[in-house]
């Protein structure tokens, strides 16, 4: 009788657990979809729909872990939903913020679990592996639907990773399990990274799994940081092609901060009728110029075709020390050109039919984004022009090449000067 009661109690409890596990992701989805349905203009509806589904999908496996009862879990779920529903629906900010919040959610839940348990069962490994896989590769579902690649990365790989991690944990080597699972899940992401990133990852993993003492602890912490960076930056799969390299690049460029972003949040489109953009600069000595742009109706442009001429005018500095001594400046001019295939490309270069027609292969996108219609990623390209010497720029002029076809436009999203 008592065993029957116990079973009944445990049954009720598991039903409650199942219900609560489903309730939070369902409520997240419902709130986001209702907000979308209530929206006056269907701006970026496909992006909203994807982000809502993505967020709910990541939280679904996480909600079945015992950490689901913690306030931090609820707060993260709420924060993600607020980001999906409340942030502006253009410019890439929302996608980036949601991706970061989802990656953080997985990291924090994993951190909470690690703090409470020494060993993970299959259930924990499966939930975390699935959540990591959805964060890293969830966008493939938007792009390809139930294609083989999607099924493999979102189903088979996490299952294998979870099994491996659980087995190794059961064998008393949870660290090795964690490393193996992470390596499996992040492998497709790391394929686009420089080889030394993968090497660093493997070395840290090796040291953490088999070493002992302070070195192993240090390696474990490095590995954790590495995993966090992979997940956080890899959470922008449609924003960055090489996420870890991007993060490391950000570290490297700390020494050359941006000086000015003269366009602010403005977008300027250079057309045949309005071909010129002129912006005033403060004269701060700069070493490089950065431009984010894309082309429309630029499929037929050959590689190396000049898209726009650029001119910086101001004061050239004879040496870096001269930055502080304006008297030694000499008037100067710097000219260059934005060219097709290297500095910019057609925005829809990722669409299969457009890609087949491109006269010049598209460069690596700086930011990819979900367009209003269609299942492909639009792309923006970043071009960076290093100046030979520090330059006290006062004015920047960009002029669309008049020889371009009349319908071709060049959209400039971001202009920055680097110190």
């Amino acid at each position, binding site marked *: 009788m008592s065993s029957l009661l116990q079973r009944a109690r445990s049954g009720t409890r598991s039903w409650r657990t199942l219900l*609560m596990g489903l309730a939070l992701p369902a409520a997240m989805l419902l709130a986001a979809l209702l907000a979308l349905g209530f929206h006056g203009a269907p701006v970026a509806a496909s992006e909203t729909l994807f982000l809502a589904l993505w967020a709910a999908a990541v939280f679904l496996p996480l909600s079945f872990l015992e950490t689901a009862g913690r306030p931090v879990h609820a707060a993260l779920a709420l924060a993600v939903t607020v980001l999906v529903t409340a942030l502006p629906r253009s410019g890439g900010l929302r996608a980036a913020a949601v991706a970061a919040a989802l990656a953080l959610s997985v990291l924090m839940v994993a951190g909470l679990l690690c703090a409470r348990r020494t060993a993970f069962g299959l259930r924990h490994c499966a939930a975390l592996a699935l959540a990591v896989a959805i964060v890293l590769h969830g966008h493939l579902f938007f792009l390809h639907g139930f294609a083989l690649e999607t099924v493999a990365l979102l189903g088979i790989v996490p299952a294998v990773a979870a099994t491996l991690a659980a087995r190794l944990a059961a064998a008393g080597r949870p660290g090795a399990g964690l490393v193996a699972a992470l390596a499996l899940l992040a492998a497709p992401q790391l394929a686009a990274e420089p080889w030394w990133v993968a090497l660093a990852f493997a070395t840290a993993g090796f040291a953490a799994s088999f070493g002992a003492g302070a070195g192993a602890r240090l390696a474990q912490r490095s590995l*954790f940081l590495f995993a966090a960076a992979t997940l956080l930056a890899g959470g922008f799969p449609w924003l960055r092609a090489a996420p870890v390299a991007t993060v490391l690049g950000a570290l490297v460029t*700390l020494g050359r901060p941006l000086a000015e972003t003269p366009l602010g949040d403005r977008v300027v489109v250079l057309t045949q009728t309005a071909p010129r953009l002129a912006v005033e600069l403060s004269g701060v000595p700069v070493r490089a110029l950065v431009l984010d742009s894309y082309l429309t109706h630029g499929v037929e442009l050959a590689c190396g075709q000049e898209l726009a001429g650029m001119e910086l005018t101001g004061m050239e500095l004879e040496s870096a020390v001269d930055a502080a001594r304006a008297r030694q400046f000499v008037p100067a001019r710097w000219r260059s050109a934005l060219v097709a295939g290297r500095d910019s490309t057609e925005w829809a270069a990722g669409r299969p039919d457009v890609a087949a027609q491109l006269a010049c292969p598209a460069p690596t996108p700086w930011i990819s984004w979900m367009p209003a219609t269609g299942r492909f990623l639009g792309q923006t390209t970043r071009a960076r022009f290093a100046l030979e010497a520090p330059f006290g720029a006062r004015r920047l002029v960009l002029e669309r090449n008049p020889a371009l076809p009349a319908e071709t436009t060049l959209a400039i999203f971001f202009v920055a000067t680097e110190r």
Partner: protein
Amino acid sequence: MKRTAYLVLAASAASFALAELLPALPLGGVRGMLVVLPVVAALFASVGRSAGGNRPTAVEAALWGGWILLALQHQALGIPGASEIVAATGLALAGVRTLALAVRLRRRIEQPVLWPFFALPLALYLFAWPWTTTARPPDGDEPYYLLLTHSLAEDGDVDLADEYRDKAWRNFTTVPVAPQPGDPTGANGEIYSRHSALLPLALAPLYRLAGPFGAQLGMLAFAAAAATAGLAAARSRFPGTPRGALAAWAILAFAPPLMLYAGQFWVEVPAALLVALVCWSLAVLDRRESVQATSTTRSAFVVLALALVALPLLKLRFLALALPLGALAFARLRSSANRRRELALLAAATLLALGLWNNWRYGNPLRMYAGSDLAIFGVPLGAQLRGGLGLFFDAAFGLFALAPIWLLLVPALHLALRGFRRQPGQEATVRLAEVAAFLPYLLLIGMRREWYGGWSPPFRYGVVLLPALALLLAPLLAAKRPAAGLRWLCAILAALSATVALVYLMHPAWAYSLANGSSRLLDELSRNFAGDLVRLFPSMVRVRPATWIVPLALSVAVLAIAIAGGKLRRSRGDRPRFLWPFSAVGLLLLWGGLLAAAQRLPTSRIEFEDAWVSHHRGALFPERWTADRTRFDGGWALTHGGQVSARPSAGGSLCRLAIRLLPAVAPEAPLALEVRAAERLVATLPLPTTGASAMAPEALPWVTLEAGPFALADGEELAFRAVGLATDGADGARSFVVLDRADLVWQ
């Protein structure tokens, strides 16, 4: 303490170095957060040590490292709006650290030391301040207080004529500052401020030392001190309930409004500190066994007297607080006739001096006020009720909309009244008398047409009451494991408050609303929505069914959850694992329900200036900065060719309209209003010609025109367009019409 001092000094040096190193542009407000981070970290470390050690985990340290990297490099991403996300992330991280430390401080609550309870809010305020100050320049009365501070610090006088002439306001804002209407002037061209000089006087030394930054630091310290004094008062009033005192302090310090007002120049913040000190003094003096002439009671008496005197000197309005609190103190000092005499003399001298000064400077002992302003019983009950309820329930200006966690006041008040009914002893009487002492101020505010505080963040006039309101919360939250309903309520309200607080910190300008029945936050939220969300929220400025239904329903619901939930007992061994997910699901369902209700409930009225209405040309009426704007019925002014449109939720297939409008139509340029349902012209309403010119708001010739019935399906656009009727080609540009509202009747 010495170690803390060295740490803060070293951190300050690091901050100065960062200020030199980091480029001003393009990092913006995020730069300031990076600059103050060493000092904030030092304060956190000091509090952590006091709390018995709470060092950040590896995850937290990694997150901070990532945040610093992001803060330095976010502009390079080229994503518009990235700064807001960086600032929000930083504030969320600091908020989590703050709350973790606040919980750990439970161990120190019964010790006399107050430093950690001051340093922790100060650290959070300091971290938020660079962003909020960059995102929003001083507004409302703030620049005037700053200008007076500048004058006192630089010239040592209160004559602002030279400050206005030299544009001294450029030291702290880019928005020109001109004398306010009604500012007193001197015989030799002096211009004085209408505002009291006590706050500027207190800030002047800091301003002299470090400019506007010093003055702002002073305001942050006032806010943190108000929270600390609130804790001291709660601790003294309820000595056996450390958890309750800690919870009350946390709500007071880390939830808006104090959090929002901390970096701003409002006289209500130091006034809140004074009220907290009065509450503390009264609690100390109330302990009958210690009423003898101990040093504590002597200092409590001195603090009480000084705080009571300073309140009306800060702002004459606070006399409505100082007098009842003084009377309460007078009644309590039964055993000491000397002190009663001293207090009475001090009160009489202060009142006399204040009256004489005001009479000399303003020609009126009551300054800008008249006797009619104090005629509380001359105000209709409905208006008084709206003002009083609005302070708490209004969607734009109310306390509960700003920080829903304060809704706990409803069960707290119930608990206090129940305690008095069940045990009408001295303790309960004392508490009720203290509550009653704040009623005159509430009545005074409620009767004012500008009960909402004018152009200011929400609950401006109520900020001064916060320490007293926090005192009410302490007994409610005293239990080690509060009942399930109360815990759930706390969870859901805390999550909502944190979200709203973060939004207001990110966009401090959104805290400022026009008194037009909506709120800036709701407008921003519903700007792109196809339906009218605002009508579901209570407004005491523009009365609608929600004005009365929502406060009532909310109070009943909160009370029911807190009381009925108290009867739910957890079964043995069942851990409270569903509390937080259930709260999150509850909030999401509530949001979904609101959206569904806004979509499904038939639209019965369209207010044309609302954010969900699309405006094509035209302008807001009356103009945004019209003095005492609530005297007018607001609307949207259209000239020839202008159009407004909305997509009402249908309550039937046929719709009839009653449009309230103000025609200003010249006979030579006649104007008509076209009504179109889904692009079909359903009515053309010629507008009557008027010779309207400058008129009193009450005398404006508003008329109501009717149209329909006509077919209108759910979600179809209903458009109103002004068209010129002149046959000679005149386009009616000299004529215009102000559309106030359209009432919709569905069949």
